[in-house]
């Protein structure tokens, strides 16, 4: 009798409990509140397009029924790219608006300012919109995660490519004098390692407030360099590409990933002046003729038409926002009904070979609890005057 009783009790206890719904602040049966800061004003306001693209993406998700039946309430505030404002807005989102987590907060200094706060408050600082390397540190900052391939890795890849293809190259570098430019620069210098001083013959910086970079291009040409690493944002990239061509300087040119749009950088610069540009990419470029009939991009094109009709599809920020939004959507879906901050972080750190069609073929998203870098793969491509041609293999940062 006793054995039977024990057996029944054991059997009852081993039946799994019905799946519990677990929520932290900002999540309930009907909606999930997500917070974000972006520069919608000030000199960096061009980046505000990312915030707008993400908002439009979630509007589409909501129109299609939400994720697991819950709508996304995307709350985004302007921080003018000023770290004190970011701190204030982040505190507002976490303490007043009670969001579940922050997503795609933009800018390295802005994110540095709230880095410690977010981790102390144990609120996820997910998929930050910067390419800096320090966000991949799950040991010390378990609540912060990046998304895009980081700048230093890209710089290193270019350096390795130069060393492999042009061992006697003389490299000139133009960089924006801020965290983004300096991160790329460090990547390339680290890539060359001990031979950095042998390869790099000239460096010139510019400020975002400078009207042109013509003087810097003239300086770099005068150094006699035959290879050029162009670390500039779209406006200055177009200026640099055109000026280099006009003064008769024809180096092997590596263009950083931020400015590879055919529609909004290469066309203004001059398609004929952009022949031979090399870059490392992870997203498909919608104005690139190669993807003109790509089935994978059809949902994105439809999205742009319906939800962002006034935006410029050539602006890279739109496909960037769409893709990072899709990444988060996948992570939230994986959370199921457990919408605690802990679980959001756990699922975001548990994406296995997530394939999104706006990414280049062969590139997938993978995260693990010790690897907080969702996208680590890029592929080199060269511009042939009409479109970007992929070459080589997909490279990962290792």
């Amino acid at each position, binding site marked *: 009798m006793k054995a039977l009783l024990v057996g029944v009790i054991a059997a009852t206890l081993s039946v799994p409990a019905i799946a519990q719904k677990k929520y932290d602040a900002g999540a309930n049966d009907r909606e999930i509140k997500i917070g974000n800061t972006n520069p919608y*004003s000030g000199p960096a306001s061009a980046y505000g397009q990312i915030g707008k693209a993400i908002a439009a993406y979630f509007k589409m998700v909501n129109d299609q029924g939400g994720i697991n039946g819950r709508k996304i309430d995307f709350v985004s505030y*302007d921080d003018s790219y000023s*770290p004190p404002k970011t*701190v204030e807005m982040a505190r507002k989102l976490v303490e007043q608006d009670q969001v579940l987590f922050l997503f795609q907060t933009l800018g390295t200094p802005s994110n*540095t300012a709230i880095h410690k706060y977010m981790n102390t408050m144990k609120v996820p600082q997910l998929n930050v919109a910067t390419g800096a390397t320090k966000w991949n540190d799950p040991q010390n900052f378990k609540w912060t995660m990046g998304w895009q391939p980081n700048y230093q890795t890209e710089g290193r890849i270019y350096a390795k490519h130069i060393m492999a293809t042009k061992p006697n190259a003389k490299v000139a570098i133009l960089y924006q*004098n801020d*965290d983004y430019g300096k991160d790329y620069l460090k990547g390339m210098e680290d890539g060359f390692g001990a031979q950095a001083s042998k390869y790099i013959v000239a460096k010139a910086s510019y400020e975002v407030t400078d009207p042109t970079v013509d003087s810097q291009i003239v300086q770099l040409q005068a150094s006699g360099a035959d290879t050029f690493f162009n670390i500039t944002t779209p406006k200055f990239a177009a200026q640099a590409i055109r000026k280099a061509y006009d003064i008769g300087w024809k180096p092997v040119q590596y263009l950083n990933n931020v400015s590879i749009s055919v529609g909004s950088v290469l066309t203004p610069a001059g398609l004929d002046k952009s022949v031979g540009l090399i870059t490392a990419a992870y997203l498909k470029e919608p104005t690139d003729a190669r993807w003109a009939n790509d089935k994978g991009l059809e949902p994105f094109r439809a999205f742009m038409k319906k939800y962002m009709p006034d935006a410029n599809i050539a602006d890279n920020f739109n496909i960037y926002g769409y893709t990072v939004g899709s990444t988060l959507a996948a992570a939230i879906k994986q959370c199921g009904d457990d919408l605690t901050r802990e679980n959001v972080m756990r699922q975001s750190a548990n994406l296995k070979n997530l394939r999104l069609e706006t990414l280049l073929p062969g590139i997938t998203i993978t995260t693990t609890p010790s690897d907080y870098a969702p996208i680590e793969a890029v592929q080199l491509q060269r511009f042939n005057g009409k479109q970007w041609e992929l070459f080589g293999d997909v490279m990962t940062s290792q």
Partner: protein
Amino acid sequence: MSKRTLVIGIVLLAVVCTLPFIVSNYRTFQLTLVLVYAIALLGLNILTGYNGQISLGHGAFYALGAYCTAILMDHWGVPYWATIPVAGAVCLVVGFLFGLPALRLEGLYLALATFALGVAMPQLLKYHLLEKWTGGVQGIVIMKPSPPFGLPLNPDQWLYFFTLAIGAVMFILGYNLIRGRIGRALVAIRDQHIAAEAMGIHNALYKSLAFGVSAMFTGVAGALGAVAVQFVAPDSFNIFLSIVFLVGIVVGGLASIPGALYGALFIQFVPNIADEISKAAPWAIFGVFMIGFVYLMPTGVAGAVRLITSRRRA
């Protein structure tokens, strides 16, 4: 001081001291920033409002004070409260030194020189030779101070009261300065500088002193701001900050001590309101607010308040 003013003063004091216990931590943080900006605007007002020297670059002194605090705390582990007087002293000296060549410049030309200072500051902070100290583009992260002596306050409340105390000291200092001989000399120089010199006021000394003192106030504000935000980076101190300070003292009220407080409330909260109204063009809404305030109250909020109270008294 009349009985009425005393009563109003006590009520205000009571409100200000109990606020952190009523509102959320986030609001307390915002109020701390308001106090910080009020000190900065008082500094600018001493120079521009009372002494007539236009400065479009006061953000540079704010940055200087902030970095003093950050560097002292980060490199030498100086406790946060000890860095405030140091920041003030450094800015006093630098401001005075900047004021010396500025003596030769009037009006527009001084505005240009200070504008250039404000524009150049972030670039200087990023300069690679200074990177070891300033942290370059990455900036410096500061530890949040915790309340001393085991007081039953959380860090935000403690910072609020700390800033309030220093703010009170600075305002009393400013009040005495303005009301005393020095203040009268400054105003005399602003209104009739030739007559002032003829009357025996040493223009050069007072004008440079005005620069120094004004820089000191703004530097102290910068130091307090750095402690409140816990982070300094060149991007926090661009020319827009200097311009916003100028807007603050004009909207708050030139040559007015309470004007500094009104201006601080304006520059802290109106951009947030503008953001709520329009995400597409927040600056445009902020600009509309600015124009509205200037149209309705050309002498600033303080001027309007003065008008209302004097009319009531009459």
